[in-house]
């Protein structure tokens, strides 16, 4: 008995080594059962919390990439929307030869192009936005520009090779054809140059039923914007005593203060429509 104690004392460290090694290797070998154990859950909680804290930092540095990925993905999804396709009249389909036709007889009309805002002003009377996309990246003049939530931002007025200038809604010449969601009345949205994010809606007759909070969206009557893009919500309705129209103030749905990514919407049928209008005008003038 005495010898046994002597042995243990002499080799105590070695025994501890063997015990700890044995335990480690037991954990290794019984990897799967460890995962069901309480200790594993406890450790996972702790490491999970630490990891979460560090992920906050990590995520912050990844934000740029994440953002870009999301914008790309959004564009992809938007391009798949049904509204971007137009059904062709079958009788004309026999006559027309159009590569853009797909087999179901649909034709793409609107193409969303994701772009980055390089500069943006809101404080001037005539505000412009510069986009990091130009004619070399298939952006064309007169394309509509919307923000990530499909709120109208402006219209492309100038295109260089790699950049484009957008006339923002906050511009005195900006005029967008819109529709009231409730009644369907058509009006124009302008900016009075006072307060960013606050637009004016004109040409709405007093017979129309308008209320605070009503949605106003693009009419689709121009070749610039598709039908149904949100422009803003009604904030204030005033009677204009001198005319038969309302004076309506809108809260714009796009936030002009923090535009970072926007979509330019290309109308693929614009040329055709424009040509048609030009021919019609020529005939009238002659």
């Amino acid at each position, binding site marked *: 008995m005495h010898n046994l104690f002597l042995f243990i004392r002499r080799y105590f460290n070695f025994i501890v080594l063997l015990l700890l*090694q044995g335990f*480690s290797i*037991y*954990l*290794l070998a019984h990897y799967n059962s460890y995962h069901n154990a309480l200790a594993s859950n406890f*450790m996972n909680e702790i*490491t999970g919390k630490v990891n979460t804290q560090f992920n906050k930092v990590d995520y912050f540095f990844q934000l740029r990439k994440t953002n870009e990925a999301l914008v790309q993905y959004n564009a992809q999804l938007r391009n798949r929307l049904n509204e971007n396709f137009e059904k062709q009249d079958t009788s004309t389909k026999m006559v027309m030869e159009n590569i853009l036709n797909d087999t179901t007889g649909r034709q793409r009309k609107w193409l969303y192009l994701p772009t980055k805002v390089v500069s943006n002003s809101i404080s001037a009377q005539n505000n412009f936005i510069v986009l990091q996309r130009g004619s070399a990246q298939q952006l064309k003049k007169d394309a509509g520009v919307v923000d990530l939530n499909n709120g109208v931002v402006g219209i492309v007025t100038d295109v260089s090779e790699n950049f484009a200038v957008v006339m923002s809604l906050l511009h005195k010449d900006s005029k967008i054809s819109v529709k009231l969601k409730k009644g369907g009345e058509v009006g124009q949205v302008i900016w009075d140059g006072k307060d960013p994010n606050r637009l004016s809606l004109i040409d709405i007759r007093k017979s129309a039923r308008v209320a605070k909070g009503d949605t106003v969206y693009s009419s689709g009557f121009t070749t610039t914007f598709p039908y149904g893009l949100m422009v803003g919500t009604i904030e204030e309705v005033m009677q204009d005593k001198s005319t038969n129209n309302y004076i309506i103030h809108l809260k714009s749905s796009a936030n002009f203060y923090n535009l970072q990514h926007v979509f330019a919407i290309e109308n693929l049928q614009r040329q055709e429509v424009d040509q048609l209008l030009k021919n019609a005008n020529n005939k009238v003038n002659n």
Partner: protein
Amino acid sequence: MLRFGLLILVQVFVLDRIHLHFMVTPYIYFLFILWMPFEGNRAVQMIIAFALGFTLDSFRHHPGFHASACVLIAYLRPFLINLLISQEGAENNYRAPSAKSLGGFIPYLVYAGMLTLVHHGWLFFLEAVQFGNFWYFIVKTVFSTAISLLLIIIVELLFSRKQQFRTNTV
């Protein structure tokens, strides 16, 4: 304790994300074991080493590997110190192993190098037993040891620990 946490965090959030050629990942967290004081109960030191390894294993969700390797080097450490220490009574004058207390940079390098080699060797041996492929294991051990050692030297140069004298007899 602070050193314990800091080394684990650096290992988990910085070094574990590095995968060099051959899937070599440098390890420096076991510097904690290398820097443990001369004195103290060896069994307790081994248990602390086990805790260190187990903590790291918990972050990798596969317990056993590092715990085992850490316990092994904690056990072997005193033997190596006895072999390397040249100054008479240095163990009594200094608190923990360093280039100064082991009498020069070369002995310290040998000390760190041997323990790193043993640690990595045992660690990758356990991995190799699990996953096979022993040739790869040898290559990985050699490369990892070299890179870890390089990092240890850098850490040693950057963060000079205060030499704590226990007596002033030298």
